C-alpha cells in the first residue's frame, strides 16, 4: 500500500530472514517477485496505509483470498506518518477489512518483528505487551514524577543529550515524551539513545484518544506546543476531525 518500504527493508535485515524464506513459500511480493495475480494465501503481511481507491479494492481482494491478515508497521496499523498530510491522511487497513493481528512500529522493532514471524511460522498468535513504555523505561528508576514541569520542547537541547551521564526522565526535563501513552516492545530504543519516545508503536490501551486526553490533562504544555500539529497523531490517523 502507500509506504516508505521501511518495513520491507527491516524484514530483509532480520537475522531470521533467510530462514523465513526457506520455511515459507512466498507467493505474492511485488518487491521481489513478478507475480501480479492474487491467488489464495495462508498468511498475508501487508505494509503501508490506504490513500487510494485501488488499494481498497486490492485489500478486499486479498482479505477474501487469505486465511490470516497481519498489518505490518505503523502505516498499516495506525495510518502512519501520512497522518500528518493536509491532503489525504492515510487510513489504517482495519478501516476497510478485518485484521487478524498487528506488528506495529516505524519501523517494527527487530526483536519484536522477528518474534512475531517465528510465531506466525509456528501457527501461534502474535503477542504484544499491553504495558506502556514507562513500564520498562531505563529512566524510570527512583522517579516519582508528578507532571509539574512545564513541557516546552519536542527534543532535548544537543548539549543535554550529549552530557547525559545521569539521564533523567524527559518529562521531568520539560521534553515531551510519549512513553506514558505508547505501548512498550522496542526495548526503549529511542530513550536509550537519548531521544524521547515518538509513539510509533501506538497506544498501549485500546482507546488512543481517551488515553491521550488523560495524558494531556496531566501535562502543562507550553503555548507553542499546544497549537503544534502532529505531536500525538504523528503515526495515527485521528478518529476525529482535526
Amino acid at each position, binding site marked *: 500500500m*502507500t*509506504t*516508505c*518500504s*521501511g*518495513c*520491507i*527493508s*527491516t524484514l*530483509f*535485515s532480520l*537475522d531470521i*530472514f*533467510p530462514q523465513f*524464506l526457506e520455511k515459507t*513459500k*512466498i507467493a505474492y*511480493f*511485488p*518487491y*521481489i*517477485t*513478478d*507475480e*501480479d495475480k492474487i491467488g489464495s494465501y495462508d498468511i498475508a503481511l501487508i505494509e503501508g496505509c490506504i*490513500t*487510494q481507491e*485501488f488499494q481498497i479494492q486490492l485489500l478486499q481482494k486479498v482479505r477474501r483470498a487469505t486465511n490470516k491478515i497481519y498489518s505490518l508497521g505503523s502505516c498499516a496499523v495506525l495510518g*502512519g*506518518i*501520512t497522518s*500528518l*498530510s*493536509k*491532503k*489525504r491522511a492515510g487510513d489504517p487497513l482495519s478501516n476497510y477489512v478485518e485484521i487478524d493481528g498487528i506488528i506495529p512500529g*516505524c*519501523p517494527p*522493532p*527487530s526483536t519484536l518483528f522477528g518474534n512475531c514471524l517465528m510465531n506466525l511460522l509456528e501457527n501461534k498468535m502474535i503477542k504484544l505487551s499491553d504495558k506502556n513504555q514507562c513500564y520498562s523505561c531505563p529512566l524510570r528508576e527512583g522517579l516519582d514524577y508528578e507532571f509539574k514541569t512545564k513541557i516546552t520542547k*519536542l*527534543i532535548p*537541547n*544537543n*548539549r543535554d*543529550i*550529549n*552530557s547525559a551521564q545521569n539521564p533523567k526522565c524527559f518529562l521531568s526535563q520539560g521534553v515531551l515524551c510519549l512513553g506514558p501513552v505508547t505501548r512498550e516492545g522496542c526495548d526503549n*530504543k*529511542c530513550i536509550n*539513545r*537519548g*531521544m524521547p519516545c*515518538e509513539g510509533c508503536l501506538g497506544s498501549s490501551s485500546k482507546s488512543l484518544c481517551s488515553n491521550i486526553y488523560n495524558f494531556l490533562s496531566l501535562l502543562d504544555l507550553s503555548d*507553542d506546543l499546544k497549537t*503544534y*500539529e*502532529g505531536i500525538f497523531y*504523528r503515526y495515527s490517523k485521528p478518529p476525529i476531525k482535526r
Partner: protein
Amino acid sequence: MTKLQKIVEPCKRIDGNGNIKILLKGDMIDHVEFEIPQIRGFENILVNKKVHDIPRIVSRICGLCHASQAIVSNKAIEDIYGISPPSQSIILRRILLIGELIKSHVMHYFFQAFPDLLKIFNFQEISNPYELMQFDPQLTSSVFDLIKLGSEIDKIFGGRYVHLISCISGGVIYKPSQISINLIRKLLQKGSNHAKYLIGNFIKLFSTKTPPSSFDLPKINYLGLSNQDRYNGKIVIKNYKNKFNFSEKDYQPYFDKDVGVFGISFHRNNNMGLITGPIAREKINEISVTERLAPYFNKINEKWKQSILFQNFLELIELDHEIHQCLKLLNEDSLNERIELPDLGEIQKSEGIGILEAPRGLLMHHYKINQNELVIQAKLFIATEINIPLMNFMTLQYARDLHKNEAIDKVKKKIAQMIRAFDPCISCATH
C-alpha cells in the same frame, strides 16, 4: 481522429508502486510513461513544523534512503543556524550513508536487476526468489551477508536498521563502543570478499557479452557531487564537452521545482538529457581509474560503458569501494574522542540548503523558515525525479522498436527491464 488507447500495468520488482502507462494510437505506440500513482505530500507536511523536528519526519520518506534523507535535512538545518558538526559526527554520518548504500545496492542488484540480466543474456528465466537463490547458492549467501552488513552498520551506529535515532542537527548523538566497531570491521572485511565475489560473478557471466543497443544511453549530462565522499562538494553538471561546477546555494539558475508538484526543471539542459546516480558518479569522480578497481573495468566489454545496464556493474563496484572507505573511516582517530555537539543556537539565515549523494544520486533539501523557527517552504530534490524524464524517453524509443515485431504484452515486460535498470526509488519519488 484516431482515439488513444491507454494501457496501464503495475511494474513489478521495483521499490514501491509504479505503473507502466502506454498510449496506443491505432497500432502505434504514441507515449510511454512511468506513472507514479500518488504523491504523499511531504513538502506540504513539513510546512509549520519546527525546524529541528524535520529530520525525524523526512526519514520516513524512504525506508531504503532513510539515512540520506535525515542527514541531508540535518545539513540544511545546520546551514540555517550557521553551525558545523564536529568532525567525528561527519565520519559517523558517512559511515551511516555507507551502510545504507551497501544494503540498497545489493538488494536492487540481486532481487531486481540480476534476474533481468540473466534473461537478457539468455542464461535462464527466473520467475521467483527461490529459483534465483538456487541459481548460485554462493552468490545468494554473499548477498544475504552483504544485506546484513549494511543493516548492522546502521543498527550499531544509528540505533536501528531503518529510520535512525542518532542523526540530529548538530551531529550524531551516539558513538559505538570499540567492541562494536571491531565487530563491524570484521563484518566489513568479510563483506569485501563477498563484494569481490559478486564482481567476479558479474565479469564471468556478462563481461564478454554485448548489451542490447536499445539500452545505450543517448548523449547526456551527468549530475552529481564533485567529491567522492558523497558528503561534501560542489554540484557538477558534466557532458562530453562541458563541465559546470557550482555551489548548492547557486542552484536556481540551473534547476528548480514547484512545491508539491512532481518533477524538477533544468533551465540550461534538456530534462530528458540528464542522469544522476552511479553512472554520473563514475563520470564525475572516475573511481574506475583507481589502482584497486581499474582491473575490473579493464575486463568489461567497452560496449557496456554506454549502456544503462552498466549501472548494475557500477553498483557492485561501489559496494566494494564503499566497504574499503568504511574500513578507512573506522581507523580515524577522532572516532575515539569524547565530543560535545554544538547547540543550534540562534537562526543565522531564513533559509538553508543541504546536499549529498544518496545511493541513487544527488539529493538536496531547501527549507525556508520564519522567525518562530517554523518551516514556511520546503523543496525536496530527489534523484529518481531527476532520472525519470530520461527513463521515459528511453523506454518510449525501446517500446516503439520492440512493437515493430512484438505484441504489446511482451513490450510491457521488456520495458519493465529497462525501468529496473534505472533503479527508480518510488518511495523517494512519491515524497
